[in-house]
């Protein structure tokens, strides 16, 4: 659990850095720490190591996901870290991000429900603060408060569910639970109640229907850097931990709960995208599209096993990168601070700055699943996995959802390329070399992932 210690250590250092007078190098330290984390993974790569009295296990699954999420975090710091670095409270943010990463790492490697709950809380509490980090902004405050209220509700549900599970099985340990499940013991009814409640709590963090209500409001109000962190990384943590639960307890399948999960996945893909189609605010639109993508990723939990893990890993990387790119552009385009953003702000972007228009198109086309970008294989792997397991409902829902999503992704592209900019906007939207570098890097990575999909999806071999 080197990664846990590194992120925890950076968090603590960041808290005292102001007092001890090394606050200037803190953001550098954070970046270096992330890279050290990535490097440290290779020390034990491919080995199973247990920690904390068998409450957490570092295995192939957790290593692969920690690796990709740390890589995503590194990309995120290079893309959005600058803006945060200029803030007067930057060290507080660094501490909060580090702590939330600690929570994330725990959620990726738990084998004990206590650790899952701890991880979820450590992940969530810094997020409540980060969402409200633009303190004088009413919208930001509103979304922080909403997120906190509903998050607390979800934590309660999870704890309630864990309590039921403990009551039914007499253990918090997933291996013990799995043994009981395999020996054919019939579980009392409140085991199912516990399971369903746990699924609800996971669903809340993933933002799938009907627990998605917080997402648009929170995404809209939070500063862009926090929104994208939540939408990309936190979503990955939540879905991967749900995957891990079913993988460890039911041995690579979703069992009788697949009906419920299929329902949530299918409805998310349909409803998320359909509501997205009538949105005009780009951030809310991407929130709803995120609901659709969460539905897609939930397929991996249902299919489970080797195929599901590979598909989920690839999907999460591609989706995170596409989202980074989209929000990076969003951050440059929606510069008026009044929260009345609309797709109209993208009018004629190609004329104002072709780099931004191109990057946005790449990001959106990747999310839409157009080859040769990564999003194509992401969706293909998921659908293929669902197909081989005979979940045809998911395939139809996924296809129809993607079709509807195409509509609003193209709306952006039409606005950017075939409309003229409004007369009152600044025609020269300038970018520095760093911005171009970040956008070029992410865009090319998406292309490379689309050309060579096995680079990522082959990281997990059970």
């Amino acid at each position: 659990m080197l990664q846990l210690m590194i992120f925890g250590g950076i968090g603590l250092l960041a808290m005292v850095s102001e007092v001890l007078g090394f606050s200037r190098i803190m953001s550098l330290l954070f970046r270096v720490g992330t890279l050290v984390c990535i490097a440290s993974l290779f020390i034990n790569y491919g080995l199973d190591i247990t920690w904390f009295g068998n409450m957490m296990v570092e295995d192939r699954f957790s290593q692969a996901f920690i690796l990709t999420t740390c890589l995503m975090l590194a990309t995120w710091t290079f893309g959005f870290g600058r803006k945060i670095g200029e803030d007067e409270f930057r060290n507080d943010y660094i501490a909060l991000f580090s702590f939330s990463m600690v929570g994330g790492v725990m959620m990726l490697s738990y084998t004990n429900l206590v650790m899952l709950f701890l991880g979820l809380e450590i992940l969530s509490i810094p997020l409540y603060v980060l969402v409200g980090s633009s303190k004088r902004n009413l919208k930001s405050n509103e979304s922080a408060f909403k997120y906190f209220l509903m998050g607390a509700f979800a934590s309660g549900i999870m704890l309630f569910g864990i309590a039921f599970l403990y009551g039914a099985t007499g253990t918090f340990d997933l291996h013990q639970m799995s043994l009981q499940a395999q020996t054919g013991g019939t579980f009392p009814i409140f085991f199912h109640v516990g399971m369903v409640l746990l699924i609800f709590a996971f669903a809340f963090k993933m933002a799938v229907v009907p627990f998605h209500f917080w997402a648009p409001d929170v995404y809209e109000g939070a500063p862009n850097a926090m929104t994208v962190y939540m939408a990309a990384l936190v979503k990955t943590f939540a879905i991967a931990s749900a995957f891990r639960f079913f993988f460890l307890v039911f041995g690579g399948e979703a069992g009788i709960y697949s009906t419920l999960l299929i329902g949530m996945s299918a409805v998310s893909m349909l409803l998320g995208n359909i509501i997205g189609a009538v949105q005009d605010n780009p951030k809310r639109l991407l929130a709803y599209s995120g609901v659709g993508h969460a539905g897609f990723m939930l397929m991996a939990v249902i299919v489970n096993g080797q195929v599901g893990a590979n598909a989920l890993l690839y999907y999460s990387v591609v989706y995170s990168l596409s989202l980074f790119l989209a929000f990076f552009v969003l951050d440059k385009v929606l510069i008026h601070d009044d929260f009345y953003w609309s797709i109209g702000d993208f009018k004629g972007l190609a004329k104002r700055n072709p780099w931004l228009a191109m990057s946005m198109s790449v990001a959106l086309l990747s999310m839409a699943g157009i080859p040769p970008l990564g999003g194509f294989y992401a969706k293909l792997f998921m659908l293929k996995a669902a197909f081989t397991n005979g979940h045809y409902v998911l395939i139809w829902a996924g296809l129809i959802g993607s079709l509807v999503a195409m509509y609003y992704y193209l709306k952006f592209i039409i606005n950017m390329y075939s409309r003229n900019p409004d007369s009152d906007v600044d025609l020269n939207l300038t970018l520095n070399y760093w911005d171009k570098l970040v956008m070029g890097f992410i865009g090319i990575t998406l292309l490379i992932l689309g050309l060579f999909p096995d680079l990522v999806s082959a990281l997990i071999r059970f």
Partner: protein
Amino acid sequence: MVSPVMENLLLVILLFPLLGAGLNLLIGNKVGEKGIGWIANTATGFSFLTALYVFFASGGCQSGLTFSMFEWFHFGKVSIPFSFYLDGLSGLFVLIITGIGSLIHLFSMGYMHGDKEIKRYFMYLNLFIFFMLTLVMASNYLLMFVGWEGVGLCSYLLIGFWYQNSTYSEAANKAFIMNRIGDLGFLLGTMLMAYHFGSLSFGDVFPQLSQFSDTGVLTAIGILFFIGAMGKSAQLPLFTWLPDAMAGPTPVSALIHAATMVTAGIYLLARTSALYVLAPLALDLVLYTGLATALLAAVIAVYQNDIKKVLAYSTVSQLGLMFAAVGSGGFGAGVFHVLTHAAFKALLFLGAGSVIHGLHGEQDILKMGGLKKSMPVTYLTFLIATLAISGIPPFAGFFSKDLILVTLYEARGPLFFGIALLISLLTAFYMFRLFFLTFHGSPRNDKLAHESPAGMKTALIVLAVLSVVLGFLGLPHIFAHPLGLSNLLEEQLKTAVVMSAPHLSATTEIVLMVITLTAVVITIALSKRKYGSVQSLMAEETRLTTLEKWASHKFYLDEIYETVVTKNMDRLARFTQHWADELIFHNISSLSGRSVREVGLVMRKIQNGNVGSYFTAMVLAMSLILIYFIFQ
């Protein structure tokens, strides 16, 4: 034993041109015209040197070098590796591509001097070399297809290089579309192969062939691949793009539309020779198509007056001959002709380029004449190339064409030999017509001709030397045996391609050779009598017979395609636009779009921003699901 270092060099050969293109993209604007040219030249030059080293150090790549990078992707049972492969056949092609490519890069520096877009030109040219190398070095058909499409793209970009001229960009479009038709054939063949053999790698597919009993499938794959070759190598019915492709800069015509890209079809067929020998029906189609194309294009070439058009039809005709050789089982003969043709046809095109350059853009041979004195180097090298293509010993074309004729005679008998001989005679006739009209007689225009700069001359001279010596690589047995030499080309290709050396008796072979030679010499004499000393501007020949009139209009093929294909396609498109698109699909899609919108608008009402109502909705959903689970 081949060392692994050598295999890594495969990547080096491939990456140099790509590096050149990338470097020019990044710093091309800063280094000026000379710098751009040198970057591109160095890239191809190094690629050539590396290829030479690899070729000779590994003994002609006989044992086959493989450089595997990684598994590209897999789907079902089919796994596609991203790896490159060099054997006797592809080794030869790599040398042709990088060697001729280097010379043409050198020539281009003089030819394109002063063009504002020279950076774009050299980037495309380097990119072309990269894709062409990918095509021949791929270890499987899918990677080959990547190169195949890549060269198509570069060819399109370079034909339309002067895109401000709308005729030129139309020519580019035409080339691209016709190639797409062929590409579809290639792609379908690839799919069929993947379906039946579970692999697309040469190393996996060919060994399976001996156990494969379904000749129908093999024939289908063979014909589909040949359709691909028809597009790329300009065979009937897809050849009309090549003459129009002369819109591009002349060095491009030399490199892409004469020496390398258009021979990709021959490469594909030779590479797949193991399959073709099991599919005789497909080979018959190749033979007939090749001969028909060769004859038709040769007849048309006699009546063309644009120097590049004559050469273009001549290329089509020579490619037809190569396919005829391949179609009668002489894969080696086809490849041999690719090799010699690459040298002398590139030389002819560069010579034509030199003439056009010297005459400031004049392309009509009726308005040339008398260039012998003002352009001595061009004159001499052009003469060598003309002799080579006409098949006069000891120039390169003689040996390869002789091999094709002998192969045809042996495999198909005197009739086919006679047709091929007729094609050779026509070739000699129109080539010398071109030669005499251009260089002999008296000048028929008022432009002051000048010889080309040193760089261009160097390229011409090297190619002229190649046009003389390359033929000896494939010395016929009747000459080789008495001298104690061997047929180097046969040795080179025997491991990679199915070879069938002619087994005719020496007497028959010599008789055939003598017949051919005598006929060719008589033809040249005829041509000399008619065009040898034209003094004044020739009037357009008015008293044309019907056949001649047809030929000068390329048998109205373009018009026929226009009426039969394009017009009907337009009609179909308009029909579907009106009935299917506007009436049916438009309404369906707008209806479904509207319904999605309605649903969205309704659902959005729940999202009213009030946390209380969110909780209500969530708790309601939770209760329903829980009740379902408890009472199910």
